[in-house]
């Protein structure tokens, strides 16, 4: 009870919910219950307003412009970079590369950092719970350069087998690519321990932080991590923007990714020389509005006591986990200790898409399918799961509506088949 009171005083979820205009709409005549933040989070007014205001008053293309607005836009864009820098506690602002999302951030590392180092037989260590965005860029190196993917299993509860990961890192390993938080299982990986073990063998580590950056407090210096990828739209920010944190020492030696404007020092008929990081990796006009929106989202999130936000999400998770656990026709995938607020499950005799359709008619938005994690689906022997993922704006009442909807799905889909 005291813990509950303390959480309430530190983070007022009902008040935060009112910051998100979409959450007051109805779907199919029912109040929206949004449990798909793991796929993409909704945006608070401050983000929407900030992007509109910026476009209405200070917008122009960034860099090299002489006129007033180009200066104002460049200031806003570079201020956004410093916001991301502080958000992940990077030592230097030029260690933050803006990308169009988490996927592009990981592809950048694959192409610019790792590909030039790969000899046939070199290994990349990754876990079976990775999102396709942290699998396919490494498959490219397998296909094109004969790299070998070394898969690290998870335990039956969805937790990472750290000893197995350690054992998988050998003298052939060129990179460890691992999620910070699984988008299906909710498992949070022990990044600090992983980095320490990899570095002990001289191997750099990339973390996919698309979920982790939203729910955990990231300190890339404390982690001593080499690369950390994040995306804006899961972080209550806009789509089309993400960021890669990379150590300065790595960036300096990395080849350019896309070629175009902004990323050069000099272009002649015969040669081209490249700008220093971060510009070297930001060819073309960047997503300026979106970068400003991302910074607003990070400021919004940092305006709360983030530990209290996490405690709120943990409370929702525990509440939902218990309710789902009482149904003997549901099998939850992923029960790792300390996991984030995501519940994936299979229901006896019911396909995830049929469940999701019925929940949708109750106004409940969940995700159904393989969640871009087919390797993990295979590991658990399922074709698809239903997933409820929570954001800071969710409430216990949302969980109650989910449970009512699940019971209804059971009534409809299992009619006549159960005694």
């Amino acid at each position: 009870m005291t813990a509950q009171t303390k959480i309430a005083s530190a983070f007022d979820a009902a008040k935060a919910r009112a910051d998100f205009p979409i959450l007051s709409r109805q779907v199919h005549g029912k109040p929206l219950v949004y449990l798909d933040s793991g796929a993409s989070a909704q945006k608070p007014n401050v983000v929407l307003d900030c992007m509109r205001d910026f476009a209405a008053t200070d917008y122009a293309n960034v860099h090299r412009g002489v006129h007033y607005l180009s200066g104002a836009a460049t200031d806003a864009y570079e201020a956004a970079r410093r916001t991301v820098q502080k958000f992940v506690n990077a030592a230097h602002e030029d260690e933050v590369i803006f990308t169009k999302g988490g996927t592009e951030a990981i592809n950048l590392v694959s192409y610019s950092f790792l590909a030039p180092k790969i000899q046939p037989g070199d290994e990349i260590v990754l876990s079976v719970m990775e999102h396709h965005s942290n699998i396919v860029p490494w498959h490219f190196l397998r296909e094109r350069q004969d790299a070998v993917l070394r898969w690290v299993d998870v335990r039956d509860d969805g937790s990472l087998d750290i000893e197995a990961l350690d054992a998988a890192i050998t003298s052939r390993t060129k990179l460890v690519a691992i999620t910070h938080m699984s988008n299906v299982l909710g498992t949070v990986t022990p990044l600090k321990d992983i980095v320490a073990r990899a570095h002990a063998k001289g191997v750099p580590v990339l973390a996919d932080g698309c979920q982790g950056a939203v729910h955990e407090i990231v300190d890339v210096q404390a982690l001593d991590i080499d690369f950390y990828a994040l995306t804006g739209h899961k972080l209550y920010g806009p789509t089309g923007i993400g960021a890669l944190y990379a150590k300065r020492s790595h960036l300096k030696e990395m080849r350019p990714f896309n070629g175009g404007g902004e990323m050069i020092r000099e272009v002649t008929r015969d040669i081209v020389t490249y700008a220093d990081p971060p510009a070297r990796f930001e060819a073309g006009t960047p997503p300026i509005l979106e970068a400003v929106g991302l910074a607003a989202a990070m400021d919004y999130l940092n305006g709360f006591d983030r530990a209290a936000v996490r405690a709120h999400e943990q409370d929702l998770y525990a509440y939902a986990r218990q309710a789902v656990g009482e149904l003997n026709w549901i099998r939850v995938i992923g029960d790792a200790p300390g996991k984030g607020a995501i519940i994936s499950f299979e229901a006896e005799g019911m396909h995830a898409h049929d469940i999701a359709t019925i929940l949708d008619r109750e106004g409940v938005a969940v995700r159904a399918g393989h969640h871009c994690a087919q390797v993990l689906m295979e590991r658990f022997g399922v074709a698809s799961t239903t997933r409820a993922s929570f954001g800071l704006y969710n409430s216990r009442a949302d969980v109650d509506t989910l449970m009512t909807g699940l019971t209804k799905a059971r009534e409809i889909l299992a009619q006549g088949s159960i005694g």
Partner: protein
Amino acid sequence: MDHSLRELYQEVILDHSRHPRHFGVLENATHKAEGYNPLCGDKVNVMLVLDKDGKVADIQFTGKGCAISQASASMMTEMLAGRTLAEAQKLMEGFIHLVKGEEAPGLSPDDREHLDVMAGLSEFPMRVKCATLAWHTFSNAIEEGAAS
């Protein structure tokens, strides 16, 4: 209870999905194809025997997926057995119109009545592709799936 949901998941459809007809591998198939929806993971394999007269002499399927995709495959195999390719083509076009909530003038009254259980899908545009997967797979089997 939501009326459109009851209509979508009516007993006939649930029965087909739980007890699919013509389910299993057809060893002597002359045509076959695999249908897969990578977005949701639904799978339907269609196998058939096309006789000398261009009739579907036998048809079976295997698959895994949501109730709609499996029920639709089951109903399709039931309806296609014994039809000529021209009839099958007409039936497929009619079916696709029907699940999209469009007029389906090409369907005979009998076929229209038989397929009526699927008409509720028009209220669920996100799920139409679940129902059409088996039919597209059949079409692929005919066009590209001749056994060599």
